[in-house]
């Protein structure tokens, strides 16, 4: 039973990270129908920024949790700036081009950022300091779930709820929904869609950075390649849940996390990806638009 629970919470943690990244994919797709392949790199850049910030700030003698929060905040802001800039540089000039062009641009951006970090940092794994000690109240269940995992799950939950409220009730959230449904009409109602698109990239990048920081704190090491793998998995999660749908991204992330965790635990870690992508294929056969996705009608 403990083994099952361990796998369950392991999958929940993994799934939460996928969900945090998948939200960025799904929001950007919802607004401009682009798969932002550079999104995984934002997650990686978030992790590196946090490592650098934490190393620098530790000289001030701050304690672990304070370091994590400060370094996390810096990582979120820095990554959001990256997301904003990527959109302006690589996607905005191609907005009226055919759909394949921005996709190629996104893949190029992804390769560029990976190699940029490879050159600027190193190809080796860097160790990420453990910033949060095990919480005392987690002692009795520590063999099932670690504190860093609880942190991931809780942060994901809070982020998702805040994001949902933002989209549902805020003025910018309404403008985002309007833009997603009909860009021309949104513009004709006076909505500055460039601003809406920028905000979407900023929020998505910030969430990915949160994921990057928390997973580094959990696993304890990072390198320039982590964004690529996590990005592909999170993209899978977004498609699984129904790309364009915010609850779909979270659901897809969790399902993928559990599938991988249980496949690793009960079968073999070699088959982790086989199960993950097998599930994707299986679900897309029966629900081509994803679990919560709506098959979209062509706009007139």
């Amino acid at each position, binding site marked *: 039973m403990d083994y099952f629970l361990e796998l369950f919470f392991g999958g929940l943690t993994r799934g939460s990270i996928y969900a945090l990244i998948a939200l960025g994919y799904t929001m950007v797709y919802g607004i401009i129908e682009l798969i932002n392949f550079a999104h995984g790199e934002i997650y990686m850049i978030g992790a590196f920024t946090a490592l650098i910030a934490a190393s620098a700030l530790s000289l001030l003698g701050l304690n672990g949790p304070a370091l994590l929060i400060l370094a996390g905040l810096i990582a979120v802001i820095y990554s959001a700036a990256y997301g904003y800039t990527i959109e302006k540089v690589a996607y905005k000039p191609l907005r009226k081009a055919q759909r394949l062009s921005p996709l190629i641009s996104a893949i190029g951006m992804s390769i560029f950022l990976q190699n940029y970090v490879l050159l600027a940092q190193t190809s080796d794994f860097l160790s990420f300091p453990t910033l949060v000690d095990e919480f005392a109240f987690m002692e009795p269940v520590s063999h099932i779930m670690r504190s860093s995992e609880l942190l991931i799950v809780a942060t994901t939950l809070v982020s998702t709820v805040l994001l949902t409220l*933002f989209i549902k009730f*805020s*003025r*910018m*959230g*309404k*403008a985002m*929904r*309007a833009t997603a*449904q*009909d860009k*021309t*009409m*949104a*513009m*004709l*109602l*006076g*909505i*500055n*869609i460039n601003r809406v698109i920028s*905000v979407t990239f900023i929020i998505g990048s910030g969430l990915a950075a949160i994921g990057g920081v928390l997973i580094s704190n959990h696993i304890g090491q990072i390198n320039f390649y982590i964004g690529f793998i996590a990005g592909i998995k999170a993209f899978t999660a977004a498609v699984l849940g129904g790309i364009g749908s915010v609850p779909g991204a979270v659901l897809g992330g969790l399902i993928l996390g559990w599938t991988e965790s249980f496949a690793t635990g009960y079968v073999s870690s070699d088959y982790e990806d086989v199960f993950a992508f097998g599930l994707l294929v299986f679900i897309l056969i029966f629900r081509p638009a994803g679990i919560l996705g709506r098959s979209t009608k062509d706009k*007139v």
Partner: protein
Amino acid sequence: MREMLQVLDIQQLTMDFGGLRAIDGVDLEVRQGEIVALIGPNGAGKTTFFNCVTGVYEPTGGRMTVRPPGKNVAVRLNRLKPNIITEHGLARTFQNIRLFQNMTVLENVMVARHCRTRSGILGAIFKNAGNRREEQEIVDFSYGLLEKVGLQMHVNDLARELPYGAQRRLEIARALATEPFLLLLDEPAAGMNPRETSELDALITRIRDDEGVSILLIEHDMKLVMSISQRIYVMDYGRLIAQGTPKEIAENPNVIKAYLGETFDA
């Protein structure tokens, strides 16, 4: 009759799509408080004309100017983005309804207040008193508009759940939420039954009289056009073939020819 101020002035508007000239040197003006109709057979270029004026298309040639009443300025519309044109006081509806189907009736109207309000993304997160007041004003204003078009019973319904005629009225309310001085209506009566059309007739007149909004409409329902418009422009094959009062238009041989073809001429 007193001289009415011009609010929209279009001169020599031309729009080419590749080798096809969809609009060819059209002149048109709307004066303050007028209801003007733009009619013509299908494919005459009427909707393209609207798309040029609202910034959806960038016209190939010509000059488009608005003069917001009360402000002593003239604004060139050429090359402006649709959202900026809306900020200057133009609003429009579409021939095929383009509501935000998955948003509620109230949200559809509220979202159109975006350009008339200030607080941005930070304001949405950190709500101070001013922000909250503004938010409340948006809700009140939107309710008021929905009441005017008779949709107060449906505020929390999804837009796609509304009956057809109500969707059309919601589109008008949403356009009014941007506080335009000139409203462009693209076939507002399309698909409506005679009772709905006569209600629409009253609604359009009321918008003009109560809100002081000038109106330019494309319409095929001749009864509606003849009853509410002061002046009519007729387009055919991208050209203006006639203009004048409803009476003049009804008697114009060119118009009759364009609508009915040569063989019925006589």
